[in-house]
């Protein structure tokens, strides 16, 4: 790679789709209308757990304007089950409804009003069953089983590692160990331990799930879907309908936010099923309350023991984590496994015993959510780190610094060595928050750190096309969901090919057109898809150099690209000139290909993470002692990103991560009583608002170009969220002496803790 200064990469260029978004011209799935398109509505179970004895849709079917009315029992013409870990989820309940809000029947009609009215003509005979709503209930002896039989495994490569415990509600167990944690804890000078709870929370993407499905006369299916991974959706549909992958086309317009809620199939199977039954295109768009009935974050109860030597050296961690994955596994088992794998955080720990269970309950299925299992564990470990610092009479910043993994150090045998400098992130966070200066008397400060692996092995492919006029098309399937990936991919191609941003077009993901990309999640798009685009653009570059070398009679190594031309010491060949020379006419194009597929390795989870996501958060809080209301006054996030391809977008993404983290830290929790979700609407489910944003919020980046992604970049976007809750709780503890173990830190919960505070010793 040439050492010339970067022209667009690393610069805070505005997002390429900014104008279309702010002017309302950007098109989302629900903006799409097809000729003859029907509108779907879903009848959902009013019970958390019920036998579905009979569903009678005949009256609904007979209603004028109704094209299709389906119940689970009607789905004999396809495989009605789907799911990425286990294929345990029916498109419509079959025999049993496992959570309140589970789809039981669905109607496609001429308009939404007709569909809604038809739902009322459907008779369902339910026999309510005892539900299990909490981890405790689900894990109790003789607990009612959410799933009686063992469902078949899904399409994930590591499905061989799935370990359900038949006859229980445990759908997966994960263990990881090195050294002898029990012995090391026995010999440690100081052992701290406690159990921490993380609530079920919903993503609240501004755009709820939506899909439009259309089968054509050849039996091929096209889906326009609000999904983060069109290629996973395609696999599910291919299995359900026994259709070759090549005959299923998933197209993804703009997403109004994802945050993990749109990974893997959600509404797409039902939309496709209805479209087939109705023999016309069907549009299925969820409301916000229906999003609460579609997916949420896996709640957890995490018990951690950590042993230290007197000098502060962390010697052992034992962790038992139970995750509530809800009524269907979705990607829950992988959330549990991947989260637990890094339960020891960014620290050097010789003796480790980690055990985790994924537990079914009769609640909304738990799935992926920004952080993917790590926030639940970081909440526990990073809180305990401060407890340990107290016991050891050490500064929490110093104690962390002492135990950080070093750059290049092994995290686990076979996995990628640590590829960032935690020390640098921590120092910058401490400096920015003013750690060494005393805060005002009514303020407290806290810090927390995080480490997270990205999905591995994974595959990203890209195609870059250079056209006769020197403009460029990028074909890649990373989904633009607000994070800015379209802009970042544009920058990468423009940088390599030395053209203005406006000469590069990134095509929206379309499985019939744009090549394979595993998923837009796990903070991987810049590092993996971006790297594939870089390689594809370099492929085009090398073709240009070869053409120029041949035609100019100069060695390729003496040529470079600049301003849309191949430049030799004394001559210059524009791209249109180069292409005309190659093809002998003003047509034809150069096609470059980039494939990033690191494959399986000996790492514990089967693949080596392409990068480690690392971040530190520092909070300064105040508390209204009379009401218990906590306010985060200042917050600093520092993420080790290798290189910020676009510092402006990255800053926005990390600010969003911090504010989203404030949600589960201070406000958000899906509350259930008597089998019912009590707060599945935005009137009573409170997400952070602009006025909850800290008055000082800074996002910094450590850039040492030490990542495996393009130009030394690593992934980012999840790291900023993860330290928020422990940093805030640590700050609150340092301010008030009160240590909370259950999130969110609602005013009432904090007020109770303050009242229970033992009188000053």
């Amino acid at each position, binding site marked *: 790679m040439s050492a010339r200064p970067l022209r667009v990469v690393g610069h805070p260029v505005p997002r390429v789709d900014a104008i279309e978004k702010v002017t309302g011209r950007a098109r989302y799935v629900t903006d799409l209308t097809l000729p003859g398109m029907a509108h779907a509505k879903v009848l959902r179970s009013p019970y958390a757990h019920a036998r579905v004895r009979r569903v009678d849709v005949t009256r609904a079917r007979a209603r004028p304007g109704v094209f299709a009315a389906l119940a689970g029992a009607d789905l004999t013409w396809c495989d009605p089950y789907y799911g990425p870990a286990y294929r345990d989820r029916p498109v419509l309940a079959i025999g049993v409804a496992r959570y309140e809000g589970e789809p039981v029947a669905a109607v496609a009609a001429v308009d939404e009003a007709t569909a809604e009215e038809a739902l009322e003509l459907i008779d369902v005979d339910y026999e309510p069953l005892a539900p299990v709503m909490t981890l405790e209930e689900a894990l109790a002896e003789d607990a009612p089983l959410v799933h009686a039989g063992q469902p078949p495994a899904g399409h994930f490569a590591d499905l061989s590692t799935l370990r359900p415990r038949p006859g229980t509600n445990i759908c997966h167990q994960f263990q990881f160990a090195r050294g002898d944690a029990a012995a090391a804890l026995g010999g440690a000078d100081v052992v701290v331990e406690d159990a921490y709870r993380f609530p079920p929370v919903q993503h609240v993407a501004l755009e709820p799930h939506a899909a439009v499905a259309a089968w054509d006369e050849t039996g091929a299916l096209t889906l326009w879907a609000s999904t983060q991974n069109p290629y996973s959706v395609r696999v599910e549909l291919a299995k359900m309908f026994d259709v070759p992958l090549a005959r299923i086309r998933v197209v993804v317009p703009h997403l109004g936010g994802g945050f993990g809620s749109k990974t893997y199939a959600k509404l797409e199977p039902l939309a496709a099923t209805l479209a087939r039954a109705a023999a016309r295109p069907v549009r299925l768009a969820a409301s916000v309350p229906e999003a609460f009935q579609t997916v949420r974050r896996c709640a957890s109860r995490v018990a951690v023991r950590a042993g230290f030597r007197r000098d502060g050296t962390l010697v052992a961690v034992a962790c038992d984590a139970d995750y509530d994955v809800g009524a269907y596994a979705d990607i829950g088992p992988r959330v549990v496994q991947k989260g637990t794998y890094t339960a020891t955080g960014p620290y050097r720990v010789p003796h480790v015993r980690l055990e985790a269970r994924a537990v079914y309950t009769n609640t909304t299925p738990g799935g992926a959510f920004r952080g993917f299992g790590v926030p639940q564990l970081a909440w526990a470990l990073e809180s305990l780190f401060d407890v340990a610092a107290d016991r050891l009479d050490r500064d929490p910043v110093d104690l962390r610094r002492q135990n950080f993994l070093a750059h290049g150090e092994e995290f686990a045998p076979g996995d990628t060595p640590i590829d960032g400098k935690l020390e640098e992130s921590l120092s910058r966070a401490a400096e920015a928050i003013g750690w060494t200066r005393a805060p005002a008397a009514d303020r407290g400060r806290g810090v927390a750190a995080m480490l997270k692996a990205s999905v591995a092995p994974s595959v990203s492919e890209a195609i870059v096309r250079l056209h006769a006029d020197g403009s460029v098309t990028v074909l890649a399937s990373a989904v633009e969901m607000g994070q800015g990936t379209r802009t970042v991919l544009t920058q990468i191609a423009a940088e390599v090919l030395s053209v203005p941003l406006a000469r590069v077009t990134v095509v929206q993901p379309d499985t019939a057109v744009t090549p394979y990309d595993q998923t837009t999640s796990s903070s991987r798009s810049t590092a993996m898809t971006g790297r594939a685009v870089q390689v594809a653009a370099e492929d085009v570059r090398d073709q240009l150099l070869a053409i120029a070398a041949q035609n100019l009679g100069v060695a390729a190594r003496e040529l470079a690209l600049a301003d849309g031309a191949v430049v030799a010491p004394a001559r210059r060949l524009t791209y249109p000139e180069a292409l005309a020379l190659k093809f002998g006419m003003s047509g034809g194009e150069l096609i470059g290909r980039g494939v990033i597929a690191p494959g399986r390795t000996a790492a514990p989870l089967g693949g080596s993470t392409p990068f480690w996501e690392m971040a530190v958060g520092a909070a300064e809080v105040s508390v209204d002692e009379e009401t218990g209301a906590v306010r985060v006054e200042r917050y600093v996030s520092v993420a080790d990103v290798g290189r910020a391809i676009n510092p402006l977008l990255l800053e926005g993404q990390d600010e969003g991560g911090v504010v989203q983290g404030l949600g589960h830290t201070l406000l958000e929790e899906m509350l259930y009583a008597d089998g019912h979700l009590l707060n599945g609407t935005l009137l009573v489910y409170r997400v952070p608002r602009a006025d909850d944003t800290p008055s000082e919020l800074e996002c910094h980046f450590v850039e040492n170009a030490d990542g495996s992604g393009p130009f030394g970049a690593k992934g980012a976007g999840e790291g900023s969220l993860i330290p928020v809750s422990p940093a805030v709780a640590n700050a609150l503890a340092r301010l008030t002496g009160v240590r909370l173990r259950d999130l969110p830190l609602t005013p009432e919960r904090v*007020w109770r803790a303050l009242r229970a505070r033992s009188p000053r010793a």
Partner: protein
Amino acid sequence: MLRPFTLHRPETAEEACALLAGLGEEAAAYAGGTELLLMMKLGLLRPRHLVDVKRIRGFGDIGLEPLSGRRLTIGAAVTHRAVEQSALVRARCPLVSSVARHVANVRVRNVGTVGGNLAFADPHSDLATLFLTLDASVELLSPRGRRELPLDDFVRGPWETSRASDELLGSVTLTPWASDTAAAYVKFGVHERPTLAVAAALRLDGTTGAGRNGRDRIVEARVAVGCVSLKPVRMAAAEARLTDLSIGDLDDAARAAADAAAAGVDPADDLYGSADYKREMVAVFVGRALRIAAARARGAESAARFPHTVVA
């Protein structure tokens, strides 16, 4: 989703009442729709006819009651935004002006109406609580004629009023406080609607003491607490503890009044909090409201900021 309905747009109260009487249970009065349409979208209410009251003459007016020339009458279809912007309201009932600026959110304020707010009687709303301290009465119109009810009698409980199904809420009339009254409205909560609300008004007697313009003695105190009990309530016991005090002694008395208010509410465990927490918060916020009012009596605005709290 919203189901189809027939919209009626009468221009007189008589027509509107006749429609309501004729259509019976099938009809609902419709003003701003911010509460009604929400319930209809959720399928909790399904009226087939909506009787829009916004075109009825006088329903959009704000004016002085002709009889007294002093009381302030706000038509049922007046929006919160119109209340906020009315010079007359600001002059006669300045706290009503500032509270109007903090009702719900700007989208609701632009279309939501005073009449709709009172007639819906959502337990977590602002106006009824504040209006109790302004001796509010409501005007009800029906084919049988017109009647006036004290607000306290009109609001019977959560989403429940004394309005008969063929009656229309025409207006609400407030009795402005004497000019030497210091007041505050404080609400607290993390959700879209408040967890609790406190309105406090202290009428001062200007004959003695060192307060602003020489006013010092509290001759009348009014304290109302909303969102906590089944309906907003005036806290007579708390008011009694404040009457006849010097404003300088308020700090001690505020604590006693706050405790009296806390003892006088009837909270339940719900999404907004546990009963004991809400009772304690009543004490905290009655105390805060009184101290803010007392500061205003001295011509000062309290600099204290409280999280999740709106001070009007």
